[in-house]
């Protein structure tokens, strides 16, 4: 255990924010995280971010960096940034790292274009077939999982229901109306077998983190979230090239790295944040990270074990399905892990000592995993 998160904050508001540009959201989150850590921008010597160039973010905040990382592989980029910042601090390349996220995912203010160079691999081998963003790509593996393991529509819908139960109690969550499995299955079909309520939100917002060496961590105002284990990996750039559509290799590699580094067992995890771009994503995470066997995630969710009162508190902010999802949700998963470890979450789980934040990038393209603890002796 060599580093810790000592500053963590989201933008003032999340949701629909047409009055703020993407880079403005980076900066707002950054300044809030610096406040949280009791630091100023002049204390920062490393800038890491995705979506925008770290050069642009450093310039916007007027920071002089000794270390830059623009790893931008989708929503798990921020798990990787914590990993990379930790390695850089360990190597003596920097001391105080700022990781930022800001995205006008819904309002599209100050965002780059979607791009679409016709010679890219995706343009040659997937786009001619009418894929329309994540809802028609990320969703393709589900039927294979259902076919091989008997996973049911009701089981997948249960993920959205359990997640909503947390959101009902969180004032910052965008979607707070209670829902049932029937509501999910009666909602509009987006890409069969996926219904609207099994798809994440599309919102604006941001978040930022400050990472320092563990031995400095107690010098800050808030309880530190020590970085116990980290992992990252990638698998493919196109969903059609996924090795086995019933499991994510990237999830598995990333998760195993994090658990091996942390030196703890799955049973030691008190709280989990599994990126839920769609209802099946946490099912794949539960299996790949080794909390259940292959094909066993469906019944686990159907039994409401991840809902409030269950034995596996998951996505306790309401997740991407009900809390917020700017396009790169991973930052918000880490924020909630930190809040739970500090004891300041909107829906606080009692006695959280160890939390796992696991993110996906693209359509199962990449993964990043963090295991965090508030126990300095760990």
């Amino acid at each position, binding site marked *: 255990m060599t580093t810790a998160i000592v500053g963590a904050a989201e933008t003032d508001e999340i949701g629909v924010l047409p009055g703020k540009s993407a880079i403005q959201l980076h900066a707002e989150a950054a300044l809030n995280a610096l406040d949280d850590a009791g630091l100023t921008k002049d204390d920062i010597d490393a800038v890491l971010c995705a979506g925008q160039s770290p050069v642009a973010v450093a310039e916007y905040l007027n920071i002089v960096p000794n270390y830059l990382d623009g790893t931008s592989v989708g929503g798990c980029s921020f798990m990787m940034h914590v990993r990379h910042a930790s390695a850089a601090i360990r190597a003596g390349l920097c001391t105080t790292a700022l990781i930022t996220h800001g995205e006008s995912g819904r309002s599209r203010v100050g965002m780059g274009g979607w791009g679409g160079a016709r010679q890219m691999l995706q343009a040659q081998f*997937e786009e*001619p077939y009418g894929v329309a963003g994540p809802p028609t790509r990320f969703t393709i593996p589900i039927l294979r999982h259902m076919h091989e393991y008997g996973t049911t529509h009701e089981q997948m819908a249960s993920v959205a229901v359990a997640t909503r139960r947390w959101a009902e109690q969180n004032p910052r969550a965008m979607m707070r109306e209670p829902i049932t499995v029937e509501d999910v299955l009666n909602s509009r079909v987006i890409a069969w077998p996926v219904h609207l309520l099994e798809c994440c939100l599309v919102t604006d917002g941001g978040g930022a983190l400050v990472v320092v060496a563990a031995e400095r961590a107690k010098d800050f105002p808030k309880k530190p979230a020590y970085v116990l284990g980290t992992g990252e990996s990638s698998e493919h750039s196109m969903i059609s090239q996924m090795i086995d559509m019933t499991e994510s290799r990237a999830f598995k590699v990333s998760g195993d790295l994090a658990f091996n580094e942390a030196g703890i067992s799955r049973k030691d995890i008190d709280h989990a944040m599994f990126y839920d771009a769609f209802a099946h994503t946490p099912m794949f995470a539960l299996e790949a990270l080794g909390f259940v066997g292959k094909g066993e995630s469906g019944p686990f969710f159907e039994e409401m074990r991840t809902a409030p009162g269950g034995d596996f508190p998951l996505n306790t902010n309401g997740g991407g399905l009900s809390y917020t999802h700017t396009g790169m949700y991973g930052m918000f998963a880490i924020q909630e892990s930190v809040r739970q470890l500090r004891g300041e979450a909107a829906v606080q789980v009692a006695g959280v000592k160890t939390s796992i934040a696991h993110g996906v990038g693209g359509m199962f393209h990449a993964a990043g995993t963090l295991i965090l603890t508030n126990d300095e002796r760990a």
Partner: protein
Amino acid sequence: MPKRPLPEPTPETREYWEGTKRGELRIQRCRSCSKAYFYPRPFCPWCASKDVEWFTASGKGKLYSYVISHRPAHGFQDWTPYVIAIVELDEGPRMMTNIIGVEPAPENLPVDMPVEVTFEQQSDDITVPLFRPAGSRA
């Protein structure tokens, strides 16, 4: 026919797109480890050998997984809902495609259903491979 976003072939993929124009599914295999692979690359993704060759695949395969998209991509508005599928070729590799020649309903599209290739010309340069249930006349 949907107005598909059409690709621009690159040097290492040109033989594939030349093949589809002739009604042939040209893919590659490795002479060292004998495995077939897709998408086109000038080396084997399994053993990294550069000793690779093009061949014409059988065009037969099975429906590995799919969605029925109710959300039209640009150009597909008149075709919704439509099937975005992953087909596993008999030779091993998988590729994205559309399933045509059958009403897009789950009961018509059992996972692992045998499928076969058919070709649809889009422009002078681009013909895309699509798949239909094996033995159908679509």
